[in-house]
């Protein structure tokens, strides 16, 4: 029988899993794997400049291609650097397989150089994690890892690889089948429950679809749109579910939640049937729980049983993949008479449309409006903060446009690397990254990766010179005491009026240029379109556009923290 090393088997496994790109950063415990990768041509290897960014890149790649994102890092600090990335992927159900190097087995437990118990550290933020303790188990474990990552509710899986196990010779076969007795993800749909839910839908007076990220994860947008149009039931989405139906469709009311559209939150409060798919009723969308959808019966379709009846009590629970459920629902659904209800919603939309005050120079919405016009096909990736909420509110999405962001964990520093991953997976689709000046500096080193990989990503930095989202809370609820949020001054700077504020550091335009990227600064509305045009002409290098924004720009509406969903501050 032919025997090969564990390292060789891993490369073989990646090929058999159809992996074409991996994100890796080397170190002592994975140097042999690096060597194997050097000696092959089938798998593209990307070298990010920080392991946190590495995981976000694999994550962005996975979310925009539907494939499993693959990471490879060394033990110790390499492994601890992936924690934030894995948690981010876990809370947004992104399929990743992350290989970490580990010290040889005989050193495990000795506090050896660069030894950490990464499986233990990540136990609560991965779907599954395991150390490979026998060379014989390696193939099976890799096979299982890919299966677990992509099936059921997808998520990150961590495989820890002791260096000696990987060097050991063993079986050359990579298994073709998986059988995990403790893991049997739901594959069917309970037809009886579906029919009950449809009956409720057909008899409700004010039915409303509430769509979460599950629709996008299952790539079921098209099916859902068909279902909504057939039944004529209006739609609200979470920010992760945005794009479940084209945002310009008259049935789309808006996002709900903390910074949801007034009409969307109002509709939830008034609805008598919330037909929800692929959401976990996170606190950011429900507001005060006992005031959430007080008049509504609730149907909840989700792949994860533990998401059902967890935060809110559900009347009809249905455990299923959104796509499987929708295939049936499209068949059973019939037109509902929702005219009066839709008119009522339209009344709210007209009374309190989602908009921003017109700014004398340039506001966030001006930028997003131009972006919407400039691109027919687009992947929008946002970082975390005020700019993310603007992006979630104003980005238009349809079949040709996709939006991703860190929803569950709200990880600053996610946007830029995730956009790089998205561009690597989608070389023919323009990728626009929207970031704040704070979050941009959390993974700015990835300019090196983007430049060397010749990625034409367009990075829009909304520079308001502050950690805007926190500042917004300080302005509204903390007497305008801007502690630790002013990025031009010291952390506890107190305004005295006479003092000059230092210049903003860094100079984003020069910084981009120093990496070999293009840098553009925009201060006026009239310059926005031209900046995007120049960026689009840049086919082989990234472009950073710094938009200088008024720090007093606020995200409205805003549900009062701890308040009911329809208790909104509108301006």
């Amino acid at each position, binding site marked *: 029988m032919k025997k090969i090393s564990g390292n060789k088997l891993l490369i073989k496994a990646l090929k058999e899993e159809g992996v074409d790109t991996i994100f890796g950063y080397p170190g002592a415990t994975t140097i042999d794997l690096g060597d194997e990768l050097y000696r092959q041509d089938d798998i593209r290897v990307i070298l990010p400049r920080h392991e946190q960014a590495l995981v976000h890149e694999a994550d962005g790649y996975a979310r925009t291609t539907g494939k499993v994102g693959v990471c490879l890092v060394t033990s110790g600090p390499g492994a601890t650097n992936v924690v934030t990335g894995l948690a981010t992927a876990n809370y947004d159900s992104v399929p990743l397989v992350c290989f970490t190097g580990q010290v040889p087995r005989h050193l495990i437990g000795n506090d050896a150089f660069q030894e950490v118990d990464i499986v233990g550290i990540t136990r609560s933020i991965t779907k599954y994690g395991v150390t490979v303790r026998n060379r014989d188990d390696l193939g099976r474990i890799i096979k299982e890892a890919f299966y677990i990552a992509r099936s059921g509710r997808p998520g990150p899986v961590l495989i820890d690889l002791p260096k000696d196990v990987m060097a050991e010779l063993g079986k050359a076969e990579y298994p073709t089948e998986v059988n995990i007795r*403790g893991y049997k993800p739901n594959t069917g749909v309970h037809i009886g429950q579906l029919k009950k839910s449809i009956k409720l839908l057909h008899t409700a007076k004010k039915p409303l679809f509430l769509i979460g990220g599950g629709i996008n994860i299952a790539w079921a947008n098209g099916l859902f749109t068909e279902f909504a149009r057939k039944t004529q039931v209006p739609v609200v989405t979470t920010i992760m579910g945005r794009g479940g139906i084209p945002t310009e469709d008259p049935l789309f009311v808006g996002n709900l939640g903390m910074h949801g559209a007034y009409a969307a939150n109002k509709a939830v409060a008034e609805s008598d049937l919330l037909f929800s798919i692929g959401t976990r009723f996170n606190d950011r969308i429900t507001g005060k729980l006992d005031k959430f959808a007080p008049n509504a019966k609730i149907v909840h379709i989700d792949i994860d049983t*533990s998401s059902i009846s967890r935060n809110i009590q559900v009347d009809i629970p249905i455990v299923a993949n959104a796509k499987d459920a929708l295939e049936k629902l499209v068949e059973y659904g019939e037109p509902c008479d929702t005219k009066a209800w839709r008119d009522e919603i339209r009344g709210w939309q007209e009374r309190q449309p989602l908009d921003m005050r017109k700014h004398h120079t340039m506001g966030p919405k001006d930028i997003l409006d131009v972006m919407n016009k400039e691109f027919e096909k687009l992947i929008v990736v946002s970082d975390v903060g005020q700019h993310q909420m603007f992006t979630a509110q104003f980005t238009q999405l349809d079949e040709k446009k996709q939006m991703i962001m860190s929803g569950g964990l709200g990880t600053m520093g996610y946007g830029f690397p995730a956009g790089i991953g998205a561009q690597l997976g989608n070389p023919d689709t323009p990728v626009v990254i929207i970031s704040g000046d704070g979050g941009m500096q959390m993974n700015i080193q990835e300019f090196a990766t983007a430049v060397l990989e010749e990625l034409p990503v367009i990075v829009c930095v909304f520079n308001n010179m502050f950690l805007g989202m926190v500042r917004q809370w300080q302005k509204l609820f903390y007497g305008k005491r801007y502690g630790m949020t002013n990025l031009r001054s010291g952390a506890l700077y107190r305004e005295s009026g006479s003092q000059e504020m230092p210049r903003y550091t860094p100079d984003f335009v020069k910084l981009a240029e120093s990496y070999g990227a293009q840098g553009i600064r925009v201060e006026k509305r009239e310059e926005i379109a031209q900046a995007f045009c120049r960026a689009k002409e840049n086919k082989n290098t990234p472009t950073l556009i710094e938009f200088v924004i008024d720090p007093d720009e606020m995200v409205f509406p805003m549900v009062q923290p701890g308040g009911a969903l329809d208790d909104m501050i509108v301006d």
Partner: protein
Amino acid sequence: MEKLRKRWLSLYVENQIGVLSKISGLFSGKSYNLDSLTVGTTEDATISRMTIATVSDDETFEQIKKQLNRQVEIIKVIDMTEMFIKMKEILYVKVKKCTAEDKTSLFQIAGTFKGRVIDYGRDSLLLEFVQTGAKNDAVIKLMKTEFHNIEVVRGGSVGIESISVMDR
């Protein structure tokens, strides 16, 4: 919300490193009460069985079961709260600095509560009780009021479904 009460779960889990940590970590991470947890191997060397007691309300208990079920290493979750089961816990009580009188009453306590005196010293006795957790609670309470110098070790309940006897 239904009131808090005690509930029992029996789990079949992979007999692997880290599984116990994963389960106890789930309870602590999500702030679930973990009253007792016992684990041991079974007739199949690759499978361990755990008995877990938790005090929780209906909703939390539903979540606990769902969360356990979605762990890859957990093969099966059985809710034993309403089932006919056999369940016992082992309890050791060592009583120190006993007088002759104390010893006599300890033998009586052992007799009354179906315990046994299993070790004997000049001024100390060791008692063993194998009974339900609730009865052991009562024994400990009694011993604490009667004797000042005691040492208690208990194992946590282990349970199994009954075959024909329909009591707990």
